[in-house]
Every structure is written in structure tokens, then in C-alpha cells.
């Protein structure tokens, strides 16, 4: 497959475009996903393409029926996504920020996630919820959450968080094609990052972690933008005198969890650090530590270390926010602590 260098934003746009072209039951809805839904003047059409411009150009290609702006009514349109999924469409619903889940959680966790089970298998809900995560945008406490952990908590949902443009494209295509509800977490901080992305149809199966860097001394499991933080830490350590060789496992799929890949790496290196930007309590980070404690304890040559956000909301001031988000330096320290 030939590749080009495009951004994470473009990769998602491309995947959506391809899936909409391929399957006419795929639709997109959300607030301002075009912009100016009240006006059909060409100048206005597509004024935004979503708050981060990710869905730009789609309305021209697929029209206002399939690329659908909504009122500010998250329960209403999230539930409409669930109902549409149950009756034969394959909706992609944009929730602008994951922190807005509070106003529509029921439709996700009590309806979408449980419907198939409660109905004894008589429904399927091929719904994809696109949402944004990540601090570092100086967007303060209600617009900077990375609370994917609460979705992982709910049986019936799948949860994905890509770190690279290529993964974003491939996993988004897989999420749309998947017959279960998937929460697809786009990191705001990554939208402008670029990387090689295969052209044309490109699908990465859900549920597979990816080793972004091989190493032998310590396993660093990371999620979304923390993969980049982990990679920087790994490079620093490789260059340093101590010459520690770190393996970086990009979880990618948070539910289902690729236990095999994580465990194999832990068993190989004997050491585990988990880097996660989400709140630390009841998190994917504690899940990974639990994997080690329950299934690989005899392989561990030192304590497990977590590098996460503190147990605080995301602060606004850049001075505080930069301290909030895990850094390569903290990862390096944590790795050292596993060696004691």
C-alpha cells in the first residue's frame, strides 16, 4: 500500500470519507459538523467542519442528510444515534469533548451498551462515538478530560485511542465497521501531528496493541499521546549513560484489552511502567498494573510504576497544566524506580 505523510486530522477525515463512500448507511451527526446548517449558501456550507475541522469537506460529498448538524442536545442526538443503529444505520456520532459525556451518558452506557444483552442478542448497535480527549490545550477542567476509563468500565462498549495518524485511520475504519458500539477517542493535541498513512482502504483490527519500540529492560505501556511521551523517555534512556532499553507498548485498544501483547512484553522485560494521562483511580493504568499483579507477578523484577495525572481536575494555567500531564522526565524516573 502506498503511503503519504498526512496529519492525524486528515487521517480521520479520510477514513470517514472512505467509509461513507463504501456504505451508504454510514452517517455522521454532531454539533457544527458542517457549520451553518440554517443556510444553504455555498459560502456558509461547511464553515467549520466540526470544532476542530476534522469533518471538513464531507457535506459537499455526502449532503446534509448524511452529514447532519444537531442542536445542542447530546442526549437527544446520542440516543438518536443508538436508535438509528438499532434500526439499520451505522451512525458516527461526534461528541465534541469527552467531558460532555455527563449530559448524555445514559444513552451510551444504559442504552447502547446494554441493549443487545437485555434483548437477548436480538439487536446490534453499530454505533461509533467520536470524541476528543487530552489536556495541554489550556482548555481547563471541563474540556480537557481523558476519561476513557469510565467507558472501559462498561461491558458492551469498545474503546479505542490511537496515537498516530496511521492508527487513527485504520482503527477508525474498523470502529465504523464494527457491529458493537465503539468509543473512538481523538487526542486534540495530536490533530496536527503528521505521519505516514496508507492510501485507500486501511483497516486495523480492534483489540490489538502495537509495540511502537522494541526493548528488553522495561515495558512501558502507554495510551494515546502518552505513547509519544513514553517514546521520548525511551530515547532519552537509550542515549543516557545507563543505556536502558525500553519497550513501548501502545495499547491502542482499551477495550477489548490485548492482554497477550502486554503480558508477553512484561514477561520479556521483567519490569512495568504504565503511562496514562487519565485520572489515576479506577483507570486503564490500574488495569494494566492488575494484569501484572494477577498474571505475571513471578516475572517482575521490581515494583510496578504508574505515571499518571494527579487526582485533580485539569487546571487551566499553563504553568499547572504542564505539570499535570505526564512528562518524559517522570517516565524516566519511574523506570529507574522499577530497577531498585
Amino acid at each position, binding site marked *: 500500500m502506498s503511503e503519504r505523510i498526512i496529519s492525524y486530522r486528515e487521517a480521520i477525515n479520510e477514513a470517514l470519507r472512505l467509509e461513507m463512500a463504501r456504505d451508504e448507511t454510514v*452517517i455522521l451527526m454532531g454539533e457544527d459538523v458542517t457549520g451553518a446548517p440554517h443556510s444553504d449558501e455555498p459560502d456558509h456550507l461547511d464553515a467549520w467542519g466540526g470544532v476542530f475541522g476534522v469533518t471538513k469537506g464531507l457535506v459537499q460529498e455526502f449532503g446534509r*442528510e*448524511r452529514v447532519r448538524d*444537531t*442542536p445542542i*442536545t447530546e*442526549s*437527544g*442526538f*446520542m*440516543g*438518536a*444515534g*443508538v*436508535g*438509528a*443503529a*438499532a*434500526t*439499520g*444505520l451505522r*451512525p458516527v456520532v461526534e461528541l465534541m469533548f469527552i467531558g460532555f459525556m455527563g449530559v448524555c451518558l*445514559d*444513552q451510551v452506557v*444504559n*442504552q447502547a451498551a446494554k*441493549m*443487545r*444483552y*437485555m*434483548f*437477548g*442478542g*436480538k*439487536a*446490534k448497535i453499530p454505533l461509533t462515538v467520536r470524541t476528543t480527549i487530552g489536556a495541554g490545550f489550556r482548555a481547563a477542567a471541563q474540556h480537557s478530560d481523558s476519561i476513557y476509563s469510565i467507558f472501559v468500565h462498561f*461491558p*458492551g462498549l*469498545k474503546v479505542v485511542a490511537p496515537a498516530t495518524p496511521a492508527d487513527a485511520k485504520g482503527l477508525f475504519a474498523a470502529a465504523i465497521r*464494527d*457491529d*458493537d458500539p465503539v468509543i473512538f477517542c481523538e487526542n486534540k493535541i495530536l490533530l496536527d501531528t503528521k505521519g505516514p498513512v496508507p492510501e485507500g482502504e486501511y483497516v486495523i483490527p480492534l*483489540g490489538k496493541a502495537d509495540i511502537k519500540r522494541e526493548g528488553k529492560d522495561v515495558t512501558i505501556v502507554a495510551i494515546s499521546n502518552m505513547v509519544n511521551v513514553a517514546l521520548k523517555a525511551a530515547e532519552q534512556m537509550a542515549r543516557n549513560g545507563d543505556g536502558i532499553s525500553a519497550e513501548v507498548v501502545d495499547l491502542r485498544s482499551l*477495550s*477489548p*484489552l490485548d*492482554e497477550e501483547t502486554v503480558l508477553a512484553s512484561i514477561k520479556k522485560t521483567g519490569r512495568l511502567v504504565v503511562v496514562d494521562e487519565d485520572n489515576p483511580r479506577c483507570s486503564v493504568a490500574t*488495569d494494566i498494573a*492488575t*494484569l501484572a499483579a*494477577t*498474571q505475571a507477578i513471578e516475572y517482575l523484577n521490581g515494583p510496578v510504576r504508574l505515571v499518571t495525572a494527579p487526582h485533580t481536575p485539569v487546571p487551566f494555567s499553563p504553568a499547572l497544566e504542564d505539570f499535570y500531564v505526564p512528562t518524559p522526565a517522570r517516565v524516566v524516573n519511574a523506570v529507574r524506580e522499577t530497577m531498585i
Partner: protein
Amino acid sequence: MDINHDKLLWMYKTMRSIRAFEDQLHTDFAAGKIPGFVHLYAGEEAVATGVCANLTDRDYITSTHRGHGHCIAKGVDIKEMMAEIHGKATGACKGKGGSMHIADVNKGMLGANGIVGGGPPLACGAGLTAKLKGTDQVTVCFFGDGASNQGTTMEGLNLAGVWKLPVIFVCENNGYAETTSPQYSVSGQDIAARARGFGMPSVAIDGLDVLAIHEAVREAVSRARRGDGPTFIEAQTYRYYGHFEGDTVKYRDKDEEEQYRSRDCLLRFRGVVLEHGLLTQAELDAIDADVKKTIAEAVAFADSSPLPDTKEILTDVYVSFPEKEMWPFQAAPA
């Protein structure tokens, strides 16, 4: 009256089936045979029946915690419903959902719902599918007077209006949300008036009169099928039993109940059809007998059906998911 004979027979049979189903559950619950929360629809039969008389299998409904009547009127199999409520493997949901979650998507029944206000957004979604696929399917969203105060319900009204969806909102105002009357919970003149504020045609009708309901909904259905958007109907009705089985109903007076019982929807229907010679006593009696048999068979079916195997606990959560991830961090128990 321009309702054909078959439809009249169907209406009577449907109302009678619902009543008999609920009365049976009431008895069996008291006897300790039925587990869980069971909300009975007895008294409200005319609403589900009058509404669904206008629908085909391809149309959709969303329902509530008080869903048995909607299920029966939409054609869900009575035996499977009974087995479901008994928690049996042969149930409509293999015993996984119970009374509050009976569904049959193939019959257009998108599920009872344990969340008050859970249905209206879902109904908008079913309406959206019809709109985008260009079919003439309509979706009816049933909900209660209490549910009319839930934000999700009001969002559903607005969204259906904005998108001109083929959705009909049927508010079953039975005078109570658990113990609480709409006099206390609904600000404003009444529920139908509130819906008017969302710019949709809205009427309040006698919910004990199946023919009146049928008529009002017929109009709403053709409006929806024509692509002219949503309609709101408030049906004023009453539930005979407690909020759920086990409720001692101390929040309302006995004579209120008796007054409603004297206007019972089945009695009234019988009166009208006999008076106008639309159906005969023999036809009605035959239905009564038939229904009695159906319910007895349903109970026997439920009783004799097996409980689900514990292996079933893991199935139907996902279409696809790695099986070992279903017991994370531990071995599956024996």
C-alpha cells in the same frame, strides 16, 4: 365508523389479552412466582391498542418500564413474554432482560426501558433511519406523565421537530409517576400544552376510549408518513394496580380507582360495539375464551421452560469480543 370488522376484533382481543396477561401476573406475583420489578399496564389497554391498530410490523415503537401492553399490541409473542418475565431461557430475551426490557426488534418493538425518558431519543433515531432510507415507517414513542419532565424527553421533542421526523409522541398520563401526580410535577397548564411550545400539533384525548385514540393516531400517522413531522398526543388514562407489584398504593384514594374502573376501557368498548351492532356478544365471548386459553398456555410454557444455562451469562454482550476478556484478571468460575 370506518373501522373494519377485523380491526375491531383485533382491538378487543388485544385489550383483553393485555388485561388477562396483567391480571395473571398480578396473581402470580402475589403468590411469589414472579421475580423482580413488575409494572402492570392494566387499565391503560386502550392506549397501546388504539395506537398500534394504526401500525404495521415495519413501524417501530419505543416503550417504558410499563411495557407489557405495548409489547402485546405490537405483536410480541405472549408465550415468550411470559417466559421472559419468569426468567426462562425461552423468553423473548432469553431471560436476560425480564419485564423491564422485553423487546423484539423484528416486530418493531425497540424495547421496554428501565430508564424514565430513555425512549424518546431512541425513537428519534428510528425515525431518522426511516427518513434517510426513504421508507414510510413511523415510530411511536410511548412515555408517561412523569417522563414528560425528563430532559431527554424534551430533547426528543425538539429534535423530532427540528428534523421533522416521522415520530409520534404518545404520553400516557395515568395520573401518577410512582406516587407523584402531574399536578405537582408538570409546570404549566398541561403536558399537551407544553408540547405545543415545541411547535408540533398536540392534542389531549380520553385514553380510556380506544376508538378515539385510534382516530387521533391515525391522523398523526398519516402526517408522519407524508413527511410532515411529529405529533404529540396526551392520552389520559389510569393504572389499576400499584406502581409496581408490591406497592400498597397509599398515595391515592380507593374511590378514585373505583371511578376509573367504572369507565373501564374494555367495558366501554363492549358497550359501544354491541350497541351499534358492530360486534356480537358471541364474538366477544369467543375472544374472551380464546384469550383465557392463550394466557394459560403462556403460563404453562413459562413454567415448563428451562432456566438459562449459566454459560449464557457471557453471550450477547457483544457481537464479537475475545471470550477470555469476559472475565478480566481472573479465571472464569466453574
